């Protein structure tokens, strides 16, 4: 296997784990390693400190070679308190390294973690793991003594102390991290002092035995940054608006985990994306439809419950044949379910969850970086086919970071709006079945559209049976014709003579791909296709599938894609799935089928 290390940071939300992990990962990526992250946090904002409910985790993997996922079990667990250790100890490999913040394992911390008084948790841990008992508090307070801060303020820098230790342990450029911290925390001497103290502690004293060499093996050139799925979607939407050359309205209502896209767009302020925080999910989708009617591109995002609320709006967008992009950042459901955990259980709803005959294109992002491309493609299909499009992401993609090569604007795909042929009728169709986009303000173009069935070509109200049948077929045919915008069918892994095919979609990509590479390395002959498009399916897909004796469909739900494909193809499929709120990891996949 590739040389890589999996680290799991665990503690209270106030421990600064996300910042610590983010800095490490960015510095590792900048030094030429590949990285992937996974955030695991509770739905509560600040559950009581030190308790099991308050623990959040940040897992990352640093590797010399290209990787696809943040790893299975951890080589190193950094536990800021006893509850964090208790919650995540099962994720640490036997013989792995436990870095324990000493003060988080005192009698009070044990009580908060609901452990019997008097237990020596670290001694118990030492039976299974290597234990580095790190006096985080003492070292931090010592390093910051000269600043004469109160203990509470000084302890804010404890995550930087741990950063110093980990930077040294994994051979990341200490100078680069220091430069970064200097520019980031201009006025915070404490963070810098704590960081240096951690670095010195590691270098001079205690942690020599735990150092891991990760040689640098960078190949790709270009300008990079680390990006998570929410950031990628925000940038992808901005890029889509730029490529379209028309205003975009991003309208959404706060919901975890989709809100991060709104936050990111609000921070970036792309001048061609107007933001609207609507009063509810329904207002979000219908204002987006209004923007599309007015000649801009309406975009909305939500998670499962919000998708349900928007489904009537999707029907209107299907009927009016207006472009619309709906991003569904899936989470554990139904209902409020597991709001911060990941699932792919909205697929049925995305494909089928509307009243009437209302087909629309559905596609899925497979990774954080891929979400950028997926957002542009979703906008392209919406505009060039004059249809609502659902883009599926999920909580895992939303919060997981990886290095991203920033594309040049010239590399981005074009998005061409159907021309407003003012003399044409509103529902006259071009050779792809697409109607013109005639926005108010177009002279001589005045027309009325709405939810009532429209007459072929004119769009005037029609209850005529033959007309309805013709329009139902025309709308479906237009969506089917979206395949002209697809790239070639990508077979991610192909082995000569394979008679087994794995199909997967969305965020399972990384774990499935790693699993497939391992199987291939072990001599197992199996091919792998990862679906970008869930509807309409890639026109080459069925032909490809027919070559195999055995088809395995992997997904984070109870077999929704498998059942959908069985309905379409009437062929036997094996379903490999889980619905636990946690993404697959390669170790687990290796066990799940053979």
């Amino acid at each position: 296997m590739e040389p890589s290390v999996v680290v799991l940071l665990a503690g209270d939300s106030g421990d600064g784990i996300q910042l610590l992990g983010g800095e490490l990962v960015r510095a590792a990526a900048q030094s030429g390693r590949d990285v992937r992250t996974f955030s695991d946090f509770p739905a509560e904002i600040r559950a009581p400190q030190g308790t099991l409910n308050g623990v959040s985790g940040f897992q990352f993997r640093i590797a010399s070679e290209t990787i696809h996922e943040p790893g299975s079990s951890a080589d190193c667990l950094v536990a800021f308190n006893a509850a964090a250790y208790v919650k995540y100890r099962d994720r640490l490999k036997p013989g792995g390294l436990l870095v324990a913040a000493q003060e988080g394992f005192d009698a009070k911390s044990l009580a908060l973690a609901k452990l019997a008084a008097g237990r020596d948790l670290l001694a118990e841990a030492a039976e299974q793991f290597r234990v580095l008992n790190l006096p985080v508090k003492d070292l931090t307070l010592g390093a910051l003594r000269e600043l004469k801060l109160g203990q509470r303020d000084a302890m804010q820098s404890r995550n930087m102390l741990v950063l110093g230790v980990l930077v040294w342990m994994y051979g990341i450029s200490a100078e680069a991290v220091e430069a970064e911290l200097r520019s980031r925390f201009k006025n915070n001497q404490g963070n810098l002092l704590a960081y240096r103290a951690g670095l010195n502690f590691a270098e001079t004293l205690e942690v020599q035995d735990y150092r891991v060499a990760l040689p640098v093996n960078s190949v790709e050139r270009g300008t990079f940054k680390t990006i998570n799925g929410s950031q990628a979607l925000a940038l992808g939407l901005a890029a889509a608006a730029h490529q379209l050359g028309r205003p975009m309205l991003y309208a959404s209502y706060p919901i975890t985990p989709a809100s991060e896209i709104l936050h990111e767009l609000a921070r970036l302020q792309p001048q061609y994306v107007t933001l609207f925080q609507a009063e509810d999910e329904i207002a979000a989708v219908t204002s987006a439809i209004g923007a599309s009617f007015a000649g801009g591109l309406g975009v909305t995002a939500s998670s499962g419950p919000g998708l349900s609320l928007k489904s009537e709006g999707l029907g209107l967008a299907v009927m009016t044949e207006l472009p619309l992009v709906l991003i569904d950042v899936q989470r554990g459901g139904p209902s409020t379910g597991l709001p911060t955990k990941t699932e792919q259980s909205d697929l049925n709803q995305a494909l089928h969850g509307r009243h009437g005959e209302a087909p629309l294109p559905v596609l899925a992002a497979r990774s954080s970086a891929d979400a950028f491309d997926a957002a542009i493609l979703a906008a392209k299909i919406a505009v060039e086919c004059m249809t609502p499009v659902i883009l599926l992401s999920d909580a895992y993609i939303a919060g997981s970071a990886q290095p991203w090569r920033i594309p040049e604007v010239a590399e981005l795909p074009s998005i061409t709006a159907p021309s407003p042929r003012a003399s044409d009728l509103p529902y006259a169709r071009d050779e792809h079945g697409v109607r013109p986009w005639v926005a108010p303000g177009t002279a001589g173009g005045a027309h009325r559209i709405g939810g009532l069935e429209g007459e072929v070509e004119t769009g005037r109200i029609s209850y005529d049976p033959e007309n309805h049948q013709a329009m139902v077929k025309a709308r479906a045919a237009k969506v089917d014709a979206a395949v002209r915008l697809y790239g070639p069918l990508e077979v991610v892994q192909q082995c000569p003579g394979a008679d087994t095919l794995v199909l997967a979609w969305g965020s399972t990509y990384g774990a499935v791909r790693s699993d497939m590479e391992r199987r291939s390395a072990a001599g197992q002959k199996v091919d792998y296709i990862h679906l970008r498009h869930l509807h309409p399916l890639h026109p080459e897909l069925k032909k490809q599938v027919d070559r195999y004796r055995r088809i395995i469909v992997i997904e984070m739900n109870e077999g929704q894609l498998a059942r959908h494909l069985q309905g379409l193809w009437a062929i036997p499929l094996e379903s490999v799935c889980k619905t636990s709120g946690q993404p697959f990891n390669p170790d687990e996949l290796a066990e799940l089928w053979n």
Partner: protein
Amino acid sequence: MELTSKDFQSPEDVRWCPGCGDYSILKQFTEVLASRGSDPDRTVLVSGIGCSSRLPYYVNSYGVHSLHGRAPSVATGIKLANPDLEVWIITGDGDALSIGGNQLIHALRRNLNVPILLFNNEIYGLTKGQYSPTSREGQVTKSTPRGSVDHPLNPLTLALGAGATWVARSMDRNPAHLREQLAASQSHQGSALLEIYQNCNVFHDGAFEVWTDKTSQAAHAVFLEAGKPVAWGGSEPSHALHWNGGSPEVRELGRDFGLSDAWVHDPSDRIKAFALASLEGELRPFGLLYRAERPVFAAAQPTEIRSLSELLRSGRTWTVE
């Protein structure tokens, strides 16, 4: 070239019931569009679902017949994408006050720059006669054969409470008054809520007769005019309102109480507008109750214009040569 109301007639056949109050509203509306120089190519009518919401189909302009209750949201999207368009919301009591209550109040509090024409007939017409949020207690409808037990909602106090900056009432049976209010709603910068009493002659005939019929109108309808006494009763008013320490009091005009003693209508006074809007009995106000100036809803503008390339490179980047 000057347009006439005929130029605003769409090719659709009008499909309201014969005798419906909507015909008068449509006629006055297209006349106002023509007389005020609206441009069919730059005008958008947005409606929800219901009898009233069919109106956009009958007007030669751009139009969206959208989802039940969601016209304010669709209009918000249109205005955000192109603030220069003339946009109207056409809605009814069920559409705006029941299923679309949330959309209405948020459009009003944001001061979306759109007139909102709320056709109030106190009944669900298109679904064939169930009681609506403005139906009166005891009203017998198909879904309330023994009389409604729900307390009705007052669209005017709701609008004032939601922060509307222009609130008025008119009626289908008074074309001149209706045209005047429609024109004024169009002139207002911000959300203008115009409640229009509209007779549904099939399911709730005569609901507003006491205020619309010539024989009873004088005694029950107060036609408000800014700067004039709040008085009624005919060409020579017989009664007026007295602002008695904060509560409106009906006074007969005569030696003890003259017109000069009456409450003078001031549409900028929100408290008094609430008092007028709260007249829910046989005496009801018509015309402009309230008007205020407040910035209209608009999208936040970026503080810094950056190219897409700069945007993609924002944050911490590194380059591998």
